[in-house]
């Protein structure tokens, strides 16, 4: 064992060695992220109600929209991810936090950056939206704030790598890093690229805003900006997949059927995912056809292949674990008998299903060069990224918070019943919100427009006042409000747990997590089950497939195989329908 500078404890639930510095830092980042999530949620209420007639001035609506975007897309998600990076690189590796004082100073810098940017946006000095496209200009404090935050995240990534390398050198674990840490490494690598291009983009604008350089070329800026604008979402994607794998382990004690394949998929993500950022500039002047196609396809869609691998590995991991433990009952018995009352498990499944069926498929549609003409800057785009970062990433992060916060703060979860219900309310609201937004986008509704009746426009536009559009926009608002209710439930449980939760050495009690029994006791149960199945002449690659006939018995995860085929069929149908829609438009070229 190595000597440790900070006092550590051993977690009574998981058996991990918990480094105090890592614990406090992870907690601070996650909690401040949750506070910003709450703030962004409050803004969402006002943004949604304005659509239904709440008298908010156009100026304020745009300010709220700008702040909502930055608060959710940058501050909430990246703060949570930094927390997850510290957690993964210390606790999961039984290692200590490197340079904790630097990490705390860095945390302070990020918070300062957030405060500066929020002041600029809410005071009306930076109504340029998240994208901040030049020549629109904002107060220098806005760019400086975003830069401080981005540099802070970059420094946190450096500390993460220092932790991982240090843990290897100190031999705090044997062999390869755990799969979850491997996924976090992928997220961190992508973050370096994203934050680097972001620093260039915002750095140029900052220099322009204080008069050092005269102009920033709008097309060049767009290429750099989308390096972070979409790059940050790829960080979210990789971090979310890592959290999915963590949740499989935590909720059903599962692991991927073939861990090597999952790791290979993370490598594909690192290599190719950032190319996809080009789908934001598919209908821009200035780029050639080959450039557009090679980039928007993530180089032959190899990053999509990575997602399709995870789309198989995640449910297959659940299926294998469930069959091992409960035996198999036909094709989907493992799913029926799953722990649906576990907020971690329900969050995991809802997040995976929604991310695959809606977020992933719509992402590929908008990234198809010609289809993008029907989608660019409509509410379809907004629907897509709410499906990815809200019902995908945010829901997954909420799911793992039900473990992280009690275990890190050593307090019992307050209001476990509300926690059980929360993922369903949140996912239901977001499902309504995003499906309605996608449909509104197909009807042509533009994004970031304060008044869809165009009442002050000299040349009036009435297309959005008749037909299905008003109803669809009402559903957008209703979905947003339901999602916010789900969000409030989450924040309530988290805050109440932190402030009033009963201090406990065994904070997992109260919710029937898969790690609900101490690791050691549960180990016995599992060992017995494994022994029971081993009496049958099964090999590694076949399942205990009672109730399944013929060739299905040879599959590792027959239920999952069927599910992914259904998913693929849905994908194909959506792709064909989108091209059918495209063929109805004016000939253009």
């Amino acid at each position: 064992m190595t000597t440790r500078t900070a006092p550590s404890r051993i977690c009574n639930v998981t058996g991990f060695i918990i480094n105090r510095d890592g614990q406090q830092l992870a907690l601070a980042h996650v909690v401040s992220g949750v506070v910003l999530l709450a703030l962004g949620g409050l803004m969402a209420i006002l943004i949604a109600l304005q659509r239904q007639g709440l008298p908010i001035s156009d100026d304020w609506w745009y300010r709220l929209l700008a702040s909502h975007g930055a608060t959710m897309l940058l501050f909430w998600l990246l703060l949570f991810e930094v927390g997850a990076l510290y957690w993964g690189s210390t606790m999961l590796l039984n290692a200590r936090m490197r340079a904790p004082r630097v990490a705390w100073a860095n945390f302070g810098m990020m918070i300062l950056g957030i405060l500066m940017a929020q002041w600029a946006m809410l005071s009306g000095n930076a109504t340029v939206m998240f994208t901040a496209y030049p020549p629109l200009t904002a107060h220098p404090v806005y760019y400086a704030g975003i830069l401080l935050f981005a540099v802070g995240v970059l420094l946190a990534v450096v500390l993460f790598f220092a932790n991982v390398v240090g843990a290897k050198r100190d031999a705090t674990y044997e062999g390869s890093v755990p799969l979850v840490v491997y996924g976090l490494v992928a997220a961190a690598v992508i973050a370096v690229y994203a934050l680097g291009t972001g620093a260039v983009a915002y750095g140029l604008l900052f220099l322009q805003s204080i008069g050092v350089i005269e102009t920033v070329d709008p097309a060049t800026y767009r290429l750099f900006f989308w390096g972070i604008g979409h790059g940050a979402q790829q960080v979210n994607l990789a971090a979310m997949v890592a959290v999915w794998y963590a949740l499989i382990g935590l909720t059903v004690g599962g692991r991927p059927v073939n861990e090597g394949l999952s790791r290979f998929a993370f490598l594909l993500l690192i290599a190719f995912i950032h190319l996809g950022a080009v789908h934001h500039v598919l209908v821009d002047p200035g780029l050639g056809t080959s450039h557009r196609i090679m980039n928007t396809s993530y180089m032959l869609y190899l990053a999509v292949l990575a997602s399709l691998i995870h789309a198989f590995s995640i449910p297959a991991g659940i299926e294998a674990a469930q069959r091992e433990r409960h035996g198999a009952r036909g094709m989907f018995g493992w799913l029926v008998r799953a722990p649906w009352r576990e907020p971690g498990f329900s969050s995991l499944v809802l997040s995976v299903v929604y991310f695959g069926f809606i977020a992933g498929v719509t992402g590929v549609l908008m990234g198809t060069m010609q289809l993008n003409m029907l989608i660019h800057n409509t509410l379809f785009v907004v629907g897509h990224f709410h499906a990815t970062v809200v019902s995908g990433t945010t829901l997954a992060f909420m799911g793992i918070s039900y473990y992280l916060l009690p275990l890190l703060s050593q307090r019992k979860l307050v209001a476990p019943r509300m926690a059980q219900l929360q993922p369903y309310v949140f996912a239901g609201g977001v499902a309504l919100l995003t499906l309605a937004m996608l449909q509104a986008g197909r009807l042509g509704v533009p994004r970031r427009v304060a008044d869809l009746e165009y009442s002050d426009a000299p040349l009036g536009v009435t297309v959005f006042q008749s037909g299905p559009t008003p109803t669809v926009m009402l559903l957008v608002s209703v979905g947003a409000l339901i999602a916010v209710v789900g969000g409030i439930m989450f924040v309530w449980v988290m805050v109440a747990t932190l402030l009033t939760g009963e201090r406990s050495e065994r904070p997992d009690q109260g919710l029937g997590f898969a790690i609900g029994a101490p690791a050691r006791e549960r180990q016995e149960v599992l060992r017995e089950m494994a022994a029971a199945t081993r009496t049958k002449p099964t090999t590694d690659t076949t399942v205990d497939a009672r109730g399944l006939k013929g060739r299905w018995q040879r599959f590792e995860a027959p239920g999952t195989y069927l599910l992914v085929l259904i998913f693929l069929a849905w994908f194909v149908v959506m792709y064909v329908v989108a091209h059918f829609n495209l063929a109805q438009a004016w000939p253009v070229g």
Partner: protein
Amino acid sequence: MSDARSPEDERELNTLTPPEKVWWKRLGPDERRWLTIAFVWCLILFTGMYVWMGIGDQQTPIESYRIDPDDFAAETTAFIEEHQVDEMEGVPVVAPPPGSNVYLQASQFQFRPVLQLEEGETYRLLVSSTDVQHGLSFQPVNLNFQVLPGYLYVIEITPDRPGEYPMICNEFCGLGHHVMTGMVIVAEAGAEGNAP
């Protein structure tokens, strides 16, 4: 209090703990099959864009040039003077001949001029901005393009149905973003009074 974990415990939390020494194993039959299907689908998605370039009528415009915003504004003004036929809410209406170059200027917070076109004819729209970035969105056909100052984007359109088609700005361009509109009027083929 429990002490450090035994090797058996190591495998307990699965994805959260280091894997077995050799974590690569042969792919199972369903994994192999899914990987093949998925990769084939990826290749179909990739070639799909090239296939549509061969069979589709709706293609992403590629032709573009750099242009000084002031020059563009001057050329647009000259174009309007040459082809103006009417005025609509203070915005000039032009009726350019089919097949010709048609200037369309986006600026805070107006698209100008109003275009009067003929059904089934092809026009080369020369689109740019004189100030900030804008979005050009034809409704309800829902065709959307980005407009950048300093760049001239050539968009060939063939409106194939008569009617009034509003243009709206769908890139945030300032506090008047929601009043920025324009209009395309598509007359039936062969209709009187459309020729210059």
